[in-house]
């Protein structure tokens, strides 16, 4: 273990503790707060609320697929009284569009960057707050106009009807579909607002991580979580402007009569023809230039967090820290040149498709390296099966499936068959639910004591895990078979086609699994709210973890640290002989001699 002189960059140790009482009254403390921890918790509850919305939309989609055109429970009789509760195909289109929109833009991206990014970055690198606390606050409050815009788009005929990918011409022209009028404009505005929110966050995270690391916290001593969040922030900063520009172009097409995406000579539903001269494919390039890196934005932070959690739960240093960092960077940089694999069948030059295919095949490599490293971290560890571990293993186990099914889609000729079938739906649900959300469940359980000072309930957590795991696999695994059968996605009634008729029972099974999975989330909410008030109190370091946040009080006060953080080691020093402990915190200079069993608390 190398021991670093505390002041390598000329930073002087601060002599007085950083923590102090939060200034101001209730409103500035808890609502318009600039404290990163409060903002993180605001993000957490907002995204959990949105998860209920997105989940309900998914269940409605599943209902229609299992019991097509039957009265939809609860909402059906209320919204579609005239049709006897039967939903309309337009409504179905809106359901899946909004399910994706809510889950991606309002749940996964904000819960990772907003909640865990905000909460963990200053705590893990030893800063008293973010570099730009007011910008941080603004980034949270920009979520609400986005939520309002998405909400408003529901209220206009049909709702947004072009899928979350918003492909022109369908999304470009009000006459193209019932929902492509005002609803689509609101949808685009919503995406723009959430983009602003992400962008402010990303600038903040980059600045904070580069400038505000505690003395001794070199780049290669940062926990993997910080690496994940750092690379994600870079991805956001470079990719997001393209989507925002594309969104503005689409809004201009819709409202100002420009024709960026609108070729000449189209007449749609008697809409007056415009000059045209645009190209619909341009949108796909702009959209996927953001939305493919966005896939990694939704995955890299989880990869980082799982690395830290697994290492802690196995009581073993992370296997291959540097290869992990390098492969994460490789994923991020390759992530910018693979967007064309969403467009193999789009009419893009097929030779370009081949180049994208090679890049896509290669991006599987760093993911494989990471998987092997996680497995090697478990190997020879000393594991305890608690809720955190279980969710981490589920992350790993299901990421393998998502990664392997990706190889089919990367192969161009095979993708031509699987493109826009349920196979791809299976693939991204395995990555985004199987990997990301299980990682998030683990992270909530793991950092909850730091957020609220109390432990979450293990029994509830394990039950929630088992039910969710069974429900998720029951819902998503059969999707591979649907895709094999050639069932296209986004069909309100696939059984209209002879060759898909026999898939109804399988879809019904999947819907039942989805209901189980949805119901299981109630346990998560019970667990969170129960433990917030009545969970057992947690000390500073309930998991015996090594990273810096565990040396601060739980919950940390305003300003985070009641001592001057100084970093001496890499992030995962487990399995060492340090007194009667098997771990060495980043703040501890060196291992102590074994002592008779007395102190169980950490040095602080």
């Amino acid at each position, binding site marked *: 273990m190398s021991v670093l002189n505390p002041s390598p960059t000329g930073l002087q140790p601060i002599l007085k503790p950083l923590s102090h009482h939060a200034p101001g009254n209730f409103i500035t403390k808890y609502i318009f707060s600039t404290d990163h921890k409060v903002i993180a918790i605001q993000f957490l509850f907002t995204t959990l609320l949105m998860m209920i919305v997105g989940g309900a939309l998914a269940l409605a989609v599943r209902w229609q697929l299992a019991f097509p055109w039957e009265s939809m429970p609860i909402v059906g009789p209320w919204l579609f009284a005239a049709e006897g509760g039967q939903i309309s*195909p337009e409504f179905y289109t809106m359901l899946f569009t909004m399910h994706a929109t809510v889950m991606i833009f309002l749940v996964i991206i904000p819960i990772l960057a907003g909640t865990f990014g905000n909460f963990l970055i200053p705590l893990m690198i030893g800063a008293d707050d973010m570099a730009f606390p007011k910008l941080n606050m603004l980034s949270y409050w920009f979520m609400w106009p986005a939520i309002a815009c998405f909400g408003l788009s529901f209220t206009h005929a049909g709702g947004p009807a072009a899928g979350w990918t918003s492909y022109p011409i369908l999304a470009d022209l009000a006459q193209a579909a019932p929902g492509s009028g005002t609803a689509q404009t609101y949808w685009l505005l919503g995406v723009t607002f959430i983009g602003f929110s992400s962008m402010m966050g990303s600038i903040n995270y980059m600045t904070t991580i580069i400038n505000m690391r505690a003395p001794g916290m070199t780049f290669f001593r940062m926990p993997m979580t910080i690496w994940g969040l750092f690379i994600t922030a870079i991805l956001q900063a470079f990719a997001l402007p393209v989507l925002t520009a594309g969104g503005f172009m689409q809004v201009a097409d819709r409202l100002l009569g420009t024709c960026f995406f609108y070729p000449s000579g189209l007449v749609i539903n008697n809409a007056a023809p415009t000059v045209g001269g645009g190209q619909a494919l341009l949108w796909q390039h702009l959209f996927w230039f953001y939305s493919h890196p966005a896939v990694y934005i939704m995955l890299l932070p989880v990869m980082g967090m799982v690395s830290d959690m697994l290492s802690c739960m196995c009581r*073993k240093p992370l296997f291959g820290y540097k290869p992990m960092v390098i492969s994460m960077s490789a994923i991020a940089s390759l992530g910018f040149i693979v967007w064309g694999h969403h467009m193999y*069948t789009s009419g893009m030059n097929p030779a370009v498709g081949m180049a994208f295919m090679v890049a896509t095949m290669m991006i599987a490599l760093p993911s494989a390296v990471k998987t092997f490293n996680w*497995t090697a971290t478990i190997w020879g560890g000393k594991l305890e099966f608690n809720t955190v571990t279980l969710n981490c293993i589920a992350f790993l186990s299901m990421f393998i499936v998502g990664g392997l*099914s990706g190889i089919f889609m990367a192969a161009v000729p095979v993708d031509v*068959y699987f493109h826009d079938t349920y196979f791809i739906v299976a693939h991204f649900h395995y990555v985004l639910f199987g990997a990301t959300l299980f990682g998030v469940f683990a992270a909530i359980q793991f950092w909850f004591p730091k957020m609220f000072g109390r432990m979450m309930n293990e029994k509830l957590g394990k039950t929630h895990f088992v039910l969710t795991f069974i429900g998720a696999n029951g819902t998503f695994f059969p999707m591979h078979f649907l895709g*094999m059968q050639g069932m296209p996605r986004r069909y309100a009634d696939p059984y209209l086609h002879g060759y898909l008729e*026999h898939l109804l029972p399988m879809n019904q099974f999947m819907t039942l699994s989805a209901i189980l999975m949805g119901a299981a989330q109630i346990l998560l909410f019970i667990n969170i709210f129960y433990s917030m008030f009545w969970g057992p109190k947690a000390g500073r370091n309930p998991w015996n973890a090594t990273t810096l946040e565990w040396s601060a009080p739980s919950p940390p006060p305003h300003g985070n640290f009641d001592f001057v953080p100084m970093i001496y080691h890499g992030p995962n020093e487990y399995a060492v002989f340090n007194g009667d402990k098997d771990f060495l915190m980043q703040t501890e200079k060196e291992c102590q001699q074994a002592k008779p069993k007395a102190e169980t608390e950490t040095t602080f």
Partner: protein
Amino acid sequence: MGKGWCLFFLFWPVAAVVSCAMAPWIGWSFPYDNAQAASNLGIRIDGLFYLILIVTAIVFIGTQAVLVYALWRSANNREERASHTHGNHKLELIWTIIPGVILLFLAIYQMNIWADFRIKKYYPEAAVKDPLAEVTARQFEWRFRYPAIGKKLQQKPQSDDLYSVNELHVPFGKPVMIQLRSDDVQHSFFMPALRIKQDALPGLQIPVWFEANKPGTYDLVCAELCGWGHYKMKAHVIVQPEDEYQLYLKNLTERQSYDGLGKIAATENGTESEATEK
């Protein structure tokens, strides 16, 4: 406790593998009861699929098995402390190079299939010279425009072109090419039996070729969201022997020039003949 969880994480990969292994026999694999692809290119695509399936199956079983074994070892570790290691360069190299080689092989291996499928230089010459029909997708139907018998398909619609809706007839035993267009929004020409999919892009005309290797009626569906009626763009492609196809075109000609009074419009020789209503 550890045993139960290890079994839990063992159970689901086993269930996954078993269900995948059963899939071809219970109709969960390729459509039409796992029928062989109806084109030679489709058969090659299936071959590539099975190759990837074998590779991924081995990796899946291997990683899941090692994961469960590592969990089992780790949960029953009697040592006081876990083993202290920060990694192993040799191992890292091994598990970077081996998957890298496999992935590179897969990438290069598939290039020929893709070139034959979509790179225009490799299109069958006969098909390119004489496109069969123009396929126009619109909300929410498929329209087909054939050239008149003995003529060639022109870029612009001709007065003697033949039209049909939601039913494309194709001669059997030779490669055919269609010109794919869209009238309004984006659609996608998807024939599951032939493993063919190509988006119809407004403003572009995209040539697509295929060769069915057995006669029959195949489903044609839309695979790109095109509005509320996306799911009901139902059409059929009927592959039939050349003589039946010519008969179909003749019937189509007669039907199209039927004047509604039991007679058909003047043919080339100026004679009139009775037409039978279908």
